[in-house]
């Protein structure tokens, strides 16, 4: 009965192919000018509240300007995961991620955008910035003022794992930059400082929100290293009266960049609206909303002074100046066998 077998298999294949084909022909209904248009913004976790308000503002702005209806779909998740989704074919029009490294990888691996993408928009394509600060228990019982207090014996420091959390790489690099300044650039001493600091870390959560939960809800640790916008949000939402912010003497300039994925936007006919969307982040309204949602705007004169009062002035160094850019920082510190790994292997 070999014939019957193959016929039956064929029937099975045909059935499956039929079922499998159906969804692929839908969901490409994006209009050009005039009709309604959808834009997909792939972002990272802590921007959720900011973009939900910004998108509403942009939608009405675009309607006034052009008469066109634009629907913005938002996707949030860990920055690395989001970048991998785009690399694997998620048709995003714009990406707004935590670190330039992830967008560099998209450019290199897919060619959806030119590799010099970061020079296309003002301020290295970062319409808003942030920094790394400390969250401590109410009243700061351990007297933590600056980075060197974190390496004291008996202090427990909470930070996500820089290997699994893009945002946490800033925590590590901020500490490194501080130590380099302190030691006059003696790298051996800086390595010892970083090693001591991470020996004080009892739990390495895989992402930033996990660390915040560990610190605030579980009550573990004396200090949490966090993005300033996350720290301010945590105080607002979780722990008013339980925790407070300590701003160190020096920290890192956290630059979450934004960019258009040219090839996706061109194919979907959304290039104009995608560019306008990102430009709007730099507009007075965009800057005001960024400040409202705890990001430091590039043009503070447009922000509400009450919002600006939440940001303490401090010296911030950049990844570019201190580490020679993300590719270099990644290679030296976070790649397998890098400095971060050696902290745990020299035990």
């Amino acid at each position, binding site marked *: 009965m*070999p014939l019957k077998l193959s016929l039956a298999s064929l029937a099975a*294949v045909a059935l499956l192919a039929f079922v499998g084909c159906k969804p692929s022909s839908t969901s490409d209904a994006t209009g050009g000018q005039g009709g309604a248009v959808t834009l997909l913004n792939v972002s990272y976790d802590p921007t959720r509240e900011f973009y939900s308000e910004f998108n509403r503002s942009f939608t009405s702005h675009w309607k006034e300007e052009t008469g066109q209806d634009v629907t913005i779909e938002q996707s949030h998740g860990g920055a690395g995961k989001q970048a991998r989704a785009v690399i694997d074919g998620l048709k995003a029009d714009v990406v707004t991620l935590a670190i330039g490294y992830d967008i560099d990888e998209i450019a290199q*691996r897919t060619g959806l955008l030119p590799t010099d993408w970061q020079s296309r928009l003002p301020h290295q394509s970062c319409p808003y910035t942030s920094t790394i600060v400390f969250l401590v228990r109410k009243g700061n019982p351990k007297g933590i003022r600056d980075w060197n207090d974190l390496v004291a014996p008996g202090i427990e420091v909470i930070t996500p794992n820089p290997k699994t959390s893009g945002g946490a790489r800033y925590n590590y690099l901020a500490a490194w930059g501080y130590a380099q300044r302190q030691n006059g650039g003696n790298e051996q001493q800086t390595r010892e400082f970083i090693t001591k600091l991470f020996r004080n870390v009892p739990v390495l959560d895989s992402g930033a929100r996990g660390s915040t939960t560990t610190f605030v809800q579980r009550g573990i640790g004396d200090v949490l290293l966090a993005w300033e916008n996350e720290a301010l949000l945590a105080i607002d939402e979780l722990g008013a009266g339980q925790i407070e912010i300590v701003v160190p003497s020096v920290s890192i300039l956290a630059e979450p960049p934004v960019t258009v994925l040219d090839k996706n936007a061109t194919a979907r006919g959304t290039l104009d609206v995608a560019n306008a969307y990102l430009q709007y982040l730099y507009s007075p309204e965009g800057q005001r909303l960024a400040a409202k949602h705890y990001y430091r705007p590039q043009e503070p004169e447009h922000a509400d002074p009450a919002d600006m009062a939440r940001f303490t002035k401090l010296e911030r160094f950049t990844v570019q100046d201190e580490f020679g850019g993300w590719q270099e920082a990644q290679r030296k510190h976070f790649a397998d066998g890098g400095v971060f790994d050696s902290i745990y292997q020299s035990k």
Partner: protein
Amino acid sequence: MTSISRPRVLPGFSLTLGYTVLYLSLIVLVPLAALFIKAAGLGWSEFWQAATSPRVLASYRLTFGTALAAAVINSIFGFIVAWTLVRYQFPGRKLLDAIVDLPFALPTAVSGIALTAVYSQNGWLGQYLEPLGVKVAFTPLGIIVAMTFIGLPFVVRTVQPALEDLEREAEEAAASLGASRWQTILWVIAPSVVPALLTGFALSLARGIGEYGSVVFISGNMPMRTEITSLLIISKLEQYDYAGAAAVAVMMLLVSFAMLLLINLIQRYAARRYQGVL
């Protein structure tokens, strides 16, 4: 005797076999083949280096060790649970029966966060365990707890039907023929339950090895100490090291496959041995 072209009593063999092969290929074999192809992008020495660096080896020890411990715990206590549910009538039995399935239904992240909340140093149970010197959250013990939690239904649900099929008359007959309590358990109950128990053990073990969502919250993820293999795979992906991640995954897959095969062989051996007895 089992050639494909031999006519059969039950019709539809060729259609169902065709469908089975196709379905398994699409759902299981093709993705796994892709994994091997990705890993093959590395040369042999690179593959070996990626799959056997000290940190990865530590994670294998941790993952397989904790999954094994959890599967053993589940086999013992899952058996007791199944026994209670099958053999005794008591109010709330149906409710208890339904509760067994909860770990199946919960998103693993929810289980992880809930377990961490309970067992961390200021949690409901953690605050009493801590003074006794027992740390659960953020230690390998916490990982075992999480794996035990998610693996329990596998043992209960595989052992339950075997126990239900067991007729009380067989035990009574054994007793009337002069068998002691232990002899009855060893020679009458065990033969029909052990194969099912082994299946449950294997499923629970496999689930534990592959678990990610619930474990990352309770483990603390400290390199060399409480870092499970799945987390290392994720951290390699986070560096866009697809091939390295695939190498570790292939290694894990091969070891898991070997373990499951071994359990199957033991199961078959056990079944045959006991059949000889009966």
